[in-house]
């Protein structure tokens, strides 16, 4: 029995972890390149999920189209929030706490616009119209089509992102920005353009993860908000700067929420109602004991240094 639980929860950790990784990469990008702890990221995720819901009902149930449109809409929202809110605050050199509050406020606005939409068109707690199918089955476990979308999509996107960062001019410019903002400006990097592209990238990641998360669960205006702190835990495990660290962090958070929680429940009877505390405890422990997260494991890698 225990064996089956273990395998099952490992698959869950894999699936949830891949999605956390997609969301956490966006947080790491905004944090390192744009120096913003962006809590509105939660709402970009929700925007992606709602786009997916609407597309799946009215346009197409083809996953590629759904993910593509979600990415586009969410990245537009991200860019608009940069232009209208975050850029002016950057310009007036607001403190990081003001930026943090601003990101909460942006999140609040988007969330309640979504609430308005959901209320008008009766879109609370809806399912994205993508049927679940069993694609692989053994005695011990079953893998669904969602698993085969989520995990490879995340892996492909993560690899693509690493390539983008390490092998393209844009990636070099982003890393330069992350490394030393003033220096980047001095040596002639088109800072504003790089920022725009970063925001588009962040939004696209959030949109795709939101669509996938919506396919896996259900869509409601608060869906991003309830996962955002878990995602922050993953990004913090990555030291808020390292891509491989963030990805590892995402799997660790998912692993603790699923497998470790499962073991604690099975062996010690710990109630699942304590589950939401797990990522929070990870955040506190990491920040207090090992604030650099997993960055050091990837020293040789060209991480986004802060």
């Amino acid at each position, binding site marked *: 029995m225990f064996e089956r*639980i273990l395998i099952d929860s490992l698959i869950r950790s894999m699936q949830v972890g891949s999605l956390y990784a997609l969301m956490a990469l966006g947080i790491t990008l905004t944090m390192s390149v744009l120096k913003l702890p962006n809590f509105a990221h939660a709402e970009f995720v929700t925007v992606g999920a709602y786009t997916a819901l609407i597309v799946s009902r009215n346009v197409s149930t083809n996953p590629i189209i759904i993910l593509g449109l979600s990415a586009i809409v969410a990245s537009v929202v991200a860019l608009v929030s940069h232009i209208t809110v975050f850029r002016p605050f950057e310009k007036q050199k607001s403190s990081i706490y003001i930026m943090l509050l601003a990101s909460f406020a942006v999140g609040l606005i988007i969330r309640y616009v979504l609430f308005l939409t959901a*209320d008008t068109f009766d879109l609370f*707690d*809806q399912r994205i119209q993508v049927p679940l199918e069993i694609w692989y089955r053994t005695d011990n476990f079953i893998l669904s089509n969602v698993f085969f979308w989520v995990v490879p999509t995340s892996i492909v996107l993560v690899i693509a992102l690493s390539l983008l960062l390490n092998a393209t001019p844009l990636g070099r410019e982003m890393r330069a920005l992350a490394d030393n903002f003033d220096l980047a400006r001095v040596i002639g990097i088109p800072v504003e353009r790089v920022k725009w592209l970063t925001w588009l990238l962040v939004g696209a990641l959030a949109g795709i993860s939101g669509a996938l998360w919506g396919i896996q669960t259900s869509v409601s205006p608060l869906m991003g908000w309830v996962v955002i702190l878990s995602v922050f835990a993953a990004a913090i495990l990555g030291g808020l700067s390292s891509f491989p660290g963030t990805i590892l962090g995402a799997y660790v958070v998912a692993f603790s929420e*699923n497998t470790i929680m*499962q073991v604690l429940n099975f062996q010690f009877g710990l*109630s699942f109602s304590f*589950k*939401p505390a797990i990522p929070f405890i990870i955040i506190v422990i990491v920040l207090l004991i090992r604030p650099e997260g997993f960055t050091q494991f990837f020293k040789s890698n060209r991480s986004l240094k802060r």
Partner: protein
Amino acid sequence: MAKRLSLLISLLLLIMIALPVQGQDDVETYVLGVAQPFTGPLGSFGTDFTRGIELAVMQMNAELEASGVNIRFEVASADTEGTPDGAARAVQTIVQTTGAEVIVGPLTTSEVLGAKQFADENGVVIVAPASSGIPGAIPGDNIFRVMYPPDNFAALAFAEIARSRGYENIAILHVDDPFGNGLAERFTIDFQAAGGGEVTTIAYSPEPPDLSGEATALSADVAQLSGSGNTAVFCICFLADAQKLLQVAQIDPILTTVEWMGVENLVSPDLLADAGHAQFLQSVNFISVSFTDTATPLTSPFIESFTAEYGDPPGPFTNYAFDAANIAMLTMLAAGNDGDAVTGMLPFVANHYIGTSVQAYLDDNGDQAIAFYGIFRVADDASSFIEIGTYNGSTGLLEMNE
């Protein structure tokens, strides 16, 4: 710039507040307060409830006009934000700015208790349509929980259903809130008193991002219980959570092999909107209880007029809000807009009221003491729920039609 803008906004708000609401001269208007969560995780409930209440008010006003009675009702609704503190502020605001002394709402037991002190101290009557948590069962206060029976009746109903279907063990998954805990606890007692076997419970935290871990544990519980007899799953969860659970359960090798029961708010067309979920619920013989007791003559007219008015059929529990509003208005017609008088009069009116689900009868705590459930399963075409029996809470009689 910002100063001017905030000034402008405040000015606009002031004008809006100061604008007098139109009313006929010779007609007396009673304001019926409605405090419901419109924002927050339970936001979708609030909207639906308020529609039910507004429908009741519209019908009542039409009747009053037709009969030439010079009293009209008006709805004043405020958002509780789903929290006790928000509920207190919402009730305060309604009472203090509209003169309402009777409030229909709030939704959950913790919201009701948040508004309780203010209501008790100021002679305001709270008629809560769907709160059923045991901590709200307090004698002698201004809180009435009409229509929706306390959880112990639902627990009995489910225990009876479980026994009649031959379940020997039950694996419960419940939300970790007063409703979920209370029902799970009572059910375990009742089920075992009725000769049931083992019961395992898994509590999940409210507003879960997903429920896959819990589903795995549930599946393990079922596997373990199945060793000692016929086992079923009992899901005490909110609709959105059920959707997340089903997403995992429908491909779980164990959860698909046993039968399922679920609480009332799962009897919703929204749960069947996903074809996979509907098919799953059908295959596991999903059974639940709900208000739509066809024996009550008021049920179908309510559903019809609601659908005609708003386009969609009423969601779970909306009928209770409709009934609660009617009881509140009838009492006000007798006692006037006076909280203390309404408090004294309301049990009498309620006890002589027949609603869309069942007659009301209040116990010493001001809570519904009659419970009459329809028992539902998924229809063969998996598009809706159909009634297959009834359970009478006062007699403990379970009748199955199939």
